Structures are given as C-alpha cells and as structure tokens.
C-alpha cells in the first residue's frame, strides 16, 4: 500500500504539490515511484524555464522505462533539486522528501483543479 500524505495536492498523473510562500513544490507520489521501480535517472528543466499546467516538464527513468512528468501548475522554475542528478534513488527512498522542482506560479487558481489526499487515494490504486 503506497503512502499518501494529508495536506498535499495531487494530480491524476501522480505528481504532488505543496504550496509554500507562493511557490509550488512538485514531486511524484509514493504510488508513482513504487510503480516505476528503481529510478536511475531524472531529467528536469533548468532554473528559469517556463512550465505549463498539464504539459510535460521532464521525465523519471527507471531501469525498464521512462515516465514523463506533467506539471500540475504553470509558472517559472525557481529551483531544481540537483541532488537527484547524482542520487535519483532518493525518489524511491522517500518520494515526498525528494522534491523535483519549485515553481513560481503564474495562476494559483490552477491549484483548484488538483486532488486532495482523499480524492487521490481513489486514483492511486
């Protein structure tokens, strides 16, 4: 059974979002990492890149396959978790600690379209 954390927002494509000071911190859910298996490579945007809600912003690669990442919100990438470049397995170890990018949101109302923990529980199974 995968972990779902109360208080985070989730997308149907298995990203999570935590909002802090107008920044959307984005990662993938525990369900997503467990479905992928051992993650060996992260492909993330650069600081300053624009991301768009619902559009691809990178990928996580497991041994077997590549899984595209879809941004839950639109905005400008303000930080990238560079630690994952050399230690992608951290996503497997704790998917909620291993954030991927932080985005300065251009339209905070996009958050309304995301799922809460209870609703995501129905998706992640």
């Amino acid at each position, binding site marked *: 059974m995968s972990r779902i954390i109360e208080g985070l927002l989730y997308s149907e494509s298995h990203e999570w979002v935590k909002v802090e000071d107008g920044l959307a911190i984005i990662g993938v859910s525990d369900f997503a990492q467990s479905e992928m*298996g*051992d993650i*060996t*490579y992260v*492909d993330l945007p650069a600081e300053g890149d624009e991301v768009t809600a619902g559009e691809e912003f990178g*990928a996580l*690669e*497991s*041994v*077997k*396959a*590549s899984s595209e990442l879809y941004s839950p919100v639109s905005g400008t990438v303000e930080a990238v978790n560079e630690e994952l470049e050399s230690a992608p397995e951290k996503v497997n170890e704790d998917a909620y600690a291993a954030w991927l990018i932080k985005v300065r949101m251009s339209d905070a109302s996009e958050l309304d379209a995301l799922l809460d923990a209870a609703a995501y529980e129905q998706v992640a199974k």
Partner: protein
Amino acid sequence: MDQELKTTCLHEDHIALGAKMSPFAGFDMPIQYAGIIQEHNAVRTAAGMFDVSHMGEIVVDGPDAEKFVNHIFTNDVRGLEPGHILYGMMCYPDGGTVDDLLVYKEFESGFLLVVNAANIEKDFDWILKNKEGFEVEVFNDSDSWGQIALQGPKAEDALVNLMGIEELRDLEFYTFYDLEDEDGGRVIVSRTGYTGEDGFEIYASPDNIRDIWAMLLEDGIQPCGLGCRDTLRFEAGLPLYGDELSADISPVMAGFSMFCKFDKPEFIGKEALMAQKTGGVARKVVGIELSDSAIPRAGYPVELEDGTEVGVVTTGYHSITLDKSICFALVDSAHAALGTPLWIRIRKKVFPGVTVKKRFYQTNYKK
C-alpha cells in the same frame, strides 16, 4: 486479466513471492521480485534463478535428423558430440531471422531445439513446412518441460548443493548431462545461460521444476524476473529476438555471422547471408556508449551531428554493472565502424555518443 495469457508451472510461486507480473510472449511472467537492480547484482556477484519455463522445446529425430537440422540451422551440427550444444539461428531464404535457438545433440538419437517462447508456434510451423523430403519426426514438446536458469558465480555451488552430484562441476560450457528424478523422469542440466555469467539451465517435468524452485529458494537463491534477464543479457552483448534479430534483421546484420557456417553444403538462407557477408549490408547492429547518463530507449532515433537520422535504438539502458548509458542500435553501415561519433535523440535533447563493442561487459563463462 487477458484470458488468453498462458502461465508457467511456477506461476503460483511467483504470485506467492509478490512478483510484479506482466504479459510476455503470451505468458503471464514475473518482471521483478525484489527489484531489477538487486536481482541483477545478485546474478553478477552471487547467484539468481529465473523461471524460463515459457521457452519452447522442439524434438527432431529420425534417420535424417542431422541432415535436416543442418538444413534449417545456420550453425553446423555435423559431428556434434552427444551431450554438446550449439547456438545459432533459423533463417528465411532472404537471410531474415526466424529465431535464434540452442540445439542439443541427444545421447540416444536426434536433437532438442530450444526456442524463444514468443516464436514456438511460428518455429514449429516453419520446421514442419521445411521437412518435406527428410525422413524425420518432429514434435513440439514444450508443454512437457519446465525450466529454471540458475546463473551467477555461485550457481555451481548452488547446483551441486541442490542435486548432491559433485560431477556437475565438471560440466563444460555448452554441454549437458542427462539425469533422472526420483520417479525416473528426465532432467537435463546444461551449462548455458543468457546473463554473461557462469550458470546452468535445468529442464525437468513441471512438478519437479516446482520442487527445484522451492529448494533453491530455501537455499537463499535470489528469484529473478524478466526485467534483469534483459539488463543482464544486454550487458553481455547477447541479442533478444524481436530487438536485435528479426525477420528484417539477419544474423549478419546483427554481427553474428560466426554462427553461420558457410562451409556447409547448404542451409536455408545461405546464399542471401553469404551475399550479405561478402557484399555488405545496408544496416548493422552496433553498440553505442553515451557520455551523459540520459537513457537511450528502443525506438529513439540515432543521428549525425547535423541531425540526419541514420538509425534507431533497439535496446538501451543505464547499465547497472557498468554505471553508464549504453545501447544497441541498428544504423546505416556507413556509420557502424567502431569509434564513430553518433548522437541519440532523447525526448527534446540530443546526446553525443560513440560506437563501441557490443559486449559491454566482460563475460565470465566457465570454459
């Protein structure tokens, strides 16, 4: 669940172990148990076991058996000693590959052909279609056999411990012993595999295979799924039918002309393969190593620096043993020489690489 999916005799055991299951070659097969990396490393450093009961076994016997096998097989079984095994291909007249397979020369008479699960029906039909004029009996014995591949540097100890037969240590690479189980059923143990490590393949009745699996599990042998079967064979430079060999990819294109014996009087595909060997082929399978750790996947385009597409990735991984991104790719022969710079398009970016030998990993066979 697809009702058409077949299961092997170990299916319940995989479920009990909590394996991630997935359809492969028409069978519901385990992809991984503990995780691909852990299983891969177990085989490289200790021992692992794979359920390969889905593989096909086709028997060819009769007065013309040797002549017939040599007619459909690229390698040469003339004079092959009983208890010895050859690897090779069956080809179409145009040189395209029907399948790659192992041929076991039986002690009594005839041959056992071990073929890929996905190709059992196709191979059997192909064999029947071509046996006219040969005095042979052919039958598909696949359902009688279960099979376990026990692989890794500690496979020999595990096997001797399991069977209590010290002589198994003397078994040479690409040879086999015939053994008997307690009920007089036949057990074949061959020193073969698909991982680049020393190891064995054990063929026995489905019931007996379940017992062997349970005993090996009790001895602490890591169960391994098809996930690491692919990463292991890939590092060792071994082809997978469908990726590096196919109806469109001949053994010569794949770089396996050493398994085509052109000094045989004849075999299906000989003329076409010889023409490819002497006149050259349009495309070849090469190895490519990337300088970045982005992962080339099957289907990704291979390009020149100016963006001209010259090929396609057939299998690619971030190699678990070598910790670098490598792939097999089918590329235009003009760009297939060792040391040729090539680029691979991975999503929106292009990554530089260079062609290298396909045996990425130094194999550890017991010769």
